[in-house]
C-alpha cells in the first residue's frame, strides 16, 4: 500500500466534505453573527421593578415639578409632573437631560483640594473631615485676624433654606457680604419697593390666566426665567388669547407671538409710556383702581406745597408719533397695541425676569408696572401678583462682638452704601473693586460660592476671572466642575438634586406663592454631601456663637423645623401653596399712604426733579464708543442652550443647530443688510470686537435680526465641565460689559458696542 500526496489530498477532501455536514461552519457563522448582536462593549440595561418618584428640578430657578422613572437604584427617565402647580407637566430640555448631570463626567465626586496653579484644574481628592477642617481653619484664622467682614458668599439665589443658612453663617461669622448673582429680580425688587413699598417680596405674573401678554423682551418661550411655567402658560394659548413680543430679534418667543414688535433695544420703556399715553388719552384705564388705590397719577402737591408732575402729565408727551420716532415702530401699531391691551379681559405687561440679559432699567420696569396698574391688573388673576415667601421658623442668629462689628461694615460690592442705598446686591461691581485693590486691602479675602458660577456668568468674564483669582481662598460648593469650581482652592461637592433634600422657593416671575421640595430619588452616587449639612458642620467646627447659631443635627432636621407644620404637606405632595390669594388692593401696598405710587417719592434718583423720579424715557448709552463699534452686540437665549451656572449637558448640545454652533465655532446672527455693508456672507468667519474683548465667530444671516444688531447665543464658550461642552464657541459674557445705573449700581446696559470684521 503506497501512501502518496493524493492520499493526503483525499484526506483533506474527506475532512472538508465531512465538516460541511457537521454543525461547525453553520453554527459558528450563526454564533459570530449573534456575537455582533451582543457585543460585550454594548451595554445591556438592567431590568427590574419600575417606580416613579416625584421631585423638583433645580438645575435652574424655574422650580419645575418632575417625576423620575427609576429601576432599583437607577434613575432612567425624567418627565414633567402634571400635578405640580408650577409647570403642570411642561418641562424644558435641560430638565429632561438632567440625568446626564447625575451620572455625567462633570460631577465632582469627592471633596477636592487644589494642587496645581489656580485654574489649572489640578486637584487631589481629600476626605470630608480634612476638607471641613481646612475650610474652618482658614476661616477661623481670618476671623482671628480681625477680617471677618472680608468673607464673601456668592449665591445663585437668596431664597430658600440653603441660601438662608449661608446668610446666617455670614451673620454669625461677621460679614455683610452675602451676594446674590444679578438677575431680573433686581429691578423688580426696586420697582416693587418704589411703587408698592415692598421689601423682599416677590413680583410675579399670572401668565396662565392672562388673556393678553405684552412682553417687553421676555424670553417666555426661550428657556429663560421659569421655563416650565411659561411654556405651560403658553400651551393654554388658544383662540382669543394674545401674546405680543417687543424685541429686536425674532426669538422663539417672538416667532410664536401673535405680533412681533421689533423696537430698538433700550427703548422698551418709551413704548410702555406710549401705550400708557393712548390708554390715558382715551380713558381706557381702570378708573376704580386709579381713583381709589393709586397715588401720583394726577399732578399732586406735597406737604411743602410744591406741585409735582403726575404720571398722567408725564405720558402726555409720549404720543404714538414721538414713541414711533424713538422705537422705530409704526405709530398706528402702537396705537392699536394700546387699545388691544387695554380692552383685553386680563391684560398683563411683563419685563425683566426672563430676558437673556436682564437690563436693570428702573425706568422701564416702573413704566411696565405702571401699565399693569393702569389697567387695574395688580394682584388679580391674570395680572401682576405680589406675594411674600413663607417665613422660616428659625431662631435669632447669635452674634459675638466680631460678628456685630463685621456685619455693620460696608459691603464689598457697595450695595446698600450711601452711593447705592436702595440696592441689595451688586456683583457686577465687585470685579472692578477687586481689581482696584492690592493684595492686602482686598475687600474679599475668602469667598464661598454656592449655586452659582460667577466666573462664567459675570459680564466681562475675563476680568471677573482675574479679579476672583486674586482672592486668596475660594471654596466652591458646586456639584460640577464648573469654571468657578475649577478656580477654587477647596471644592465641597453638593449632591445632585436627585440625591438629597432641598426646598425650592417660588420661581422668580411666577405668580404663585408655591414652595416645593426636592427629594432624593436615588442614593448619592458619589462621596458628596448636601451643602446644608456642610455649612452646619463648618459652623460647628468654628465653634463659639457661630456653632451655637447652628444647633441642628443636620440639614434635614433644620429643613423640617424651618417649615414647621407645612413640612408634612411639603413632603407628602412635594409642594405647598402658602398663600392661595394675593392681597386685595386696600391691603396690598406698603407705601406711606397705602396706595400704588405712580409717582415713586422714595426713588433715589440722579436728579431731584419730577422727571428723574418718574419713569421717563432716558436714552441709555451702552459701553463702548460709537466710532469703533458701529454695531451693537446683544446676547440671546436659546431654549437649547443652558446659559446659567450650569452648562449644557450633552443631549442639549446635540440639539443645537449647525448654524448656531459648528465644531468649535459659534455663529452670530446678523441681518443680511448688515452683512452686505460688512462684505460678509453666510458662514464667513469674522472677528467681533467689543470693549471687553474679541472673538472669532462665524456669520449666520438671519432676516429676523434688526439691522445693526449682532445677536450671539448665551451659554457657550465654557472652559470647564467636560469635553462635551468645553471649548465650544464663545462665552458672550466675555464680550459684554456692565454699565452701572448711576443711582442703583445695577447693570443697565442692554448690550455693548461692537465691530465685526471679516477674518
Amino acid at each position, binding site marked *: *500500500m*503506497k*501512501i*502518496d500526496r*493524493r*492520499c*493526503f489530498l*483525499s*484526506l*483533506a*477532501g*474527506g*475532512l*472538508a*466534505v*465531512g*465538516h460541511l*455536514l*457537521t*454543525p*461547525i461552519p453553520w*453554527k*459558528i457563522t450563526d*454564533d*459570530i453573527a*449573534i*456575537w455582533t*448582536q*451582543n457585543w*460585550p462593549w454594548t451595554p*445591556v*440595561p438592567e*431590568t*427590574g*421593578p*419600575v417606580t416613579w418618584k416625584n421631585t423638583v428640578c433645580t438645575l435652574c430657578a424655574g422650580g419645575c415639578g418632575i417625576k423620575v422613572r427609576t429601576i432599583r437604584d437607577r434613575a432612567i427617565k425624567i418627565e414633567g409632573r402634571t400635578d405640580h402647580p408650577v409647570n403642570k407637566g411642561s418641562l424644558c430640555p435641560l430638565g429632561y437631560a438632567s440625568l446626564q448631570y447625575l451620572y455625567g463626567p462633570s460631577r465632582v465626586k469627592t471633596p477636592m483640594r487644589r494642587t496645581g496653579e489656580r485654574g489649572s484644574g489640578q486637584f487631589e481628592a481629600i476626605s470630608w473631615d480634612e476638607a471641613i477642617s481646612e475650610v474652618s481653619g482658614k476661616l477661623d484664622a481670618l476671623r482671628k485676624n480681625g477680617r471677618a467682614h472680608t468673607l464673601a458668599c456668592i449665591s445663585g439665589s437668596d431664597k430658600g433654606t440653603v441660601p438662608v443658612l449661608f446668610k446666617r453663617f455670614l451673620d454669625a461669622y461677621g460679614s455683610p457680604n452675602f451676594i446674590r448673582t444679578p438677575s431680573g429680580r433686581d429691578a423688580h425688587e426696586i420697582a416693587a419697593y418704589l411703587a408698592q413699598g415692598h421689601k423682599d417680596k416677590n413680583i410675579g405674573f399670572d401668565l396662565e390666566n392672562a388673556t393678553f401678554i405684552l412682553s417687553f423682551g421676555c424670553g417666555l418661550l426661550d428657556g429663560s426665567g421659569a421655563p416650565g411655567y411659561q411654556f405651560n402658560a403658553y400651551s393654554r394659548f388658544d383662540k382669543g388669547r394674545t401674546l405680543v413680543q417687543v424685541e429686536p430679534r425674532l426669538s422663539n418667543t417672538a416667532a410664536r407671538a401673535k405680533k412681533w414688535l421689533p423696537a430698538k433695544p433700550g427703548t422698551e420703556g418709551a413704548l410702555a409710556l406710549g401705550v400708557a399715553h393712548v390708554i390715558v388719552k382715551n380713558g381706557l384705564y381702570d378708573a376704580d383702581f386709579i381713583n381709589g388705590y393709586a397715588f401720583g397719577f394726577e399732578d399732586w402737591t406735597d406737604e411743602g406745597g410744591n406741585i409735582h408732575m403726575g404720571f398722567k402729565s408725564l405720558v402726555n408727551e409720549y404720543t404714538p408719533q414721538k414713541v414711533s420716532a424713538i422705537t422705530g415702530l409704526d405709530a398706528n401699531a402702537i396705537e392699536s397695541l394700546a387699545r388691544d391691551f387695554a380692552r383685553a379681559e386680563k391684560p398683563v405687561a411683563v419685563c425683566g425676569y426672563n430676558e437673556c440679559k436682564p437690563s436693570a432699567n428702573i425706568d422701564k420696569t416702573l413704566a411696565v408696572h405702571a401699565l399693569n396698574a393702569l389697567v387695574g391688573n395688580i394682584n388679580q388673576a391674570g395680572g401682576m401678583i405680589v406675594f411674600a415667601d413663607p417665613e422660616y421658623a428659625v431662631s435669632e442668629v447669635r452674634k459675638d462682638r466680631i460678628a456685630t462689628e463685621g456685619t455693620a461694615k460696608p459691603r464689598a460690592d457697595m450695595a446698600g452704601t450711601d452711593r447705592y442705598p436702595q440696592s441689595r446686591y451688586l456683583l457686577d461691581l465687585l470685579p472692578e473693586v477687586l481689581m482696584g485693590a492690592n493684595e492686602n486691602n482686598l475687600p474679599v479675602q475668602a469667598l464661598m460660592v454656592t449655586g452659582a458660577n460667577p466666573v462664567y456668568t459675570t459680564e466681562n468674564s475675563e476680568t471677573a476671572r482675574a479679579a476672583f483669582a486674586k482672592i486668596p481662598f475660594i471654596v466652591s460648593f458646586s456639584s460640577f466642575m464648573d469654571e468657578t469650581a475649577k478656580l477654587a482652592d477647596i471644592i465641597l461637592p453638593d449632591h445632585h438634586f436627585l440625591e438629597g433634600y432641598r426646598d425650592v422657593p417660588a420661581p422668580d416671575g411666577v405668580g404663585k406663592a408655591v414652595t416645593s421640595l426636592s427629594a432624593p430619588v436615588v442614593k448619592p452616587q458619589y462621596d458628596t454631601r448636601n451643602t446644608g449639612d456642610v455649612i452646619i458642620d463648618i459652623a460647628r467646627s468654628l465653634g463659639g456663637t457661630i456653632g451655637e447659631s447652628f444647633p441642628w443635627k443636620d440639614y434635614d432636621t433644620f429643613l423640617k423645623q424651618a417649615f414647621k407644620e407645612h413640612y408634612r404637606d411639603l413632603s407628602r405632595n412635594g409642594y405647598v401653596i402658602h398663600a392661595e390669594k394675593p392681597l386685595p388692593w386696600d391691603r396690598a401696598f406698603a407705601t406711606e399712604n397705602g396706595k400704588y405710587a405712580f409717582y415713586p417719592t422714595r426713588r433715589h434718583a440722579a436728579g431731584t426733579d419730577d422727571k428723574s423720579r418718574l419713569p421717563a424715557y432716558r436714552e441709555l448709552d451702552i459701553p463702548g464708543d460709537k466710532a469703533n463699534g458701529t454695531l451693537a452686540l446683544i446676547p440671546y437665549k436659546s431654549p437649547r442652550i443652558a446659559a446659567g451656572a450650569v452648562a449644557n449637558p450633552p443631549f442639549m448640545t446635540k440639539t443645537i443647530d449647525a448654524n448656531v454652533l459648528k465644531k468649535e465655532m459659534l455663529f452670530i446672527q446678523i441681518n443680511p443688510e448688515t452683512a452686505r455693508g460688512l462684505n460678509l456672507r453666510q458662514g464667513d468667519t469674522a472677528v467681533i470686537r467689543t470693549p471687553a474683548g474679541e472673538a472669532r465667530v462665524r456669520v449666520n444671516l438671519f432676516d429676523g435680526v434688526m439691522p445693526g444688531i449682532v445677536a450671539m447665543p448665551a451659554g457657550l464658550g465654557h472652559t470647564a465641565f467636560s469635553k462635551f461642552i468645553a471649548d465650544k464657541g464663545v462665552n458672550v459674557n466675555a464680550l459684554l460689559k456692565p454699565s452701572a445705573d448711576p443711582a442703583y449700581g445695577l447693570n443697565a446696559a442692554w448690550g455693548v458696542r461692537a465691530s465685526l470684521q471679516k477674518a
Partner: protein
Amino acid sequence: MSTQTDNTSNTPSNAPSPKKGATGWVILAFFVIGFGFSLLGGWVGFPNMLYKEVPHPIDFNHALHMDLVFDGCNSCHYFRADGSFSGAPTLNECRDCHQFVMGTDPNEEKFVEEYVLQDKEVPWNIFAKQPDNVYFSHAPHVKGAGMDCAACHGDIGTSESLRPYQENRITGYSRDIWGWEMSRLGEPKYAPRMKMMDCVNCHVEQTDSKGSCFQCHK
C-alpha cells in the same frame, strides 16, 4: 470545444499508473477517514468546545420550596402591578424567609453566608435568558393565552436539584436557547428550545401569524 487544439497532443504520458485500483481504494479510505473524523469532531467534539459548563451559585431545590409556599410558582415568580414579570427573585425577597439559616441543607447555609449576610445579589444562571434585543412579556402568554410555566420552562418547578447550565463561548447564550441537541432534532432534553424560529413556529400555530418584528424585538 477548446480553441487550443494543439494542446491535447501535449498531454503528458508519464502519469503514474501502476496498481491503479489498489491506490484508488487507499485514496477512498483516506477520504472516508477524513470524512468520519470530521463528522465525529463536528457532532461530538465541537459541542463540548463551543459550550462551557457554568456552575450554579446555589443548587436550588424547587421541589422543596414548592411544598412550603402557598401559590406555586407565583409565590416567588410573580407579576408586578404594571403587568411586568419579576423573574428570578431578588435577595430581598429571599431574605423574607432566609434571614438566618433555618435548615440543615449546606446550600442554604452557603446562600445565607455568602449572599444574605454579605448583602450580595445571587448571580443566578437563567436557563431561558433571552438577549437584550428580545422583547418578551409573560403577561400575554400566561394571562392572555393561559399557558402554564412548564410549557416553556419544562419541569424545573418540581426538580430537587438544578440541571446543568452551559454557556455558549461565542454568544454567551444559555445552551437551552439552541437546545441541547446540536441537530435540534427530536424532543428537547430539558425544556423547549428558544431560538427565534421556535417562537415563530408556536406563534404561527397559535395565532396564524408569526407577528411583526416589533411584536418581539426592541
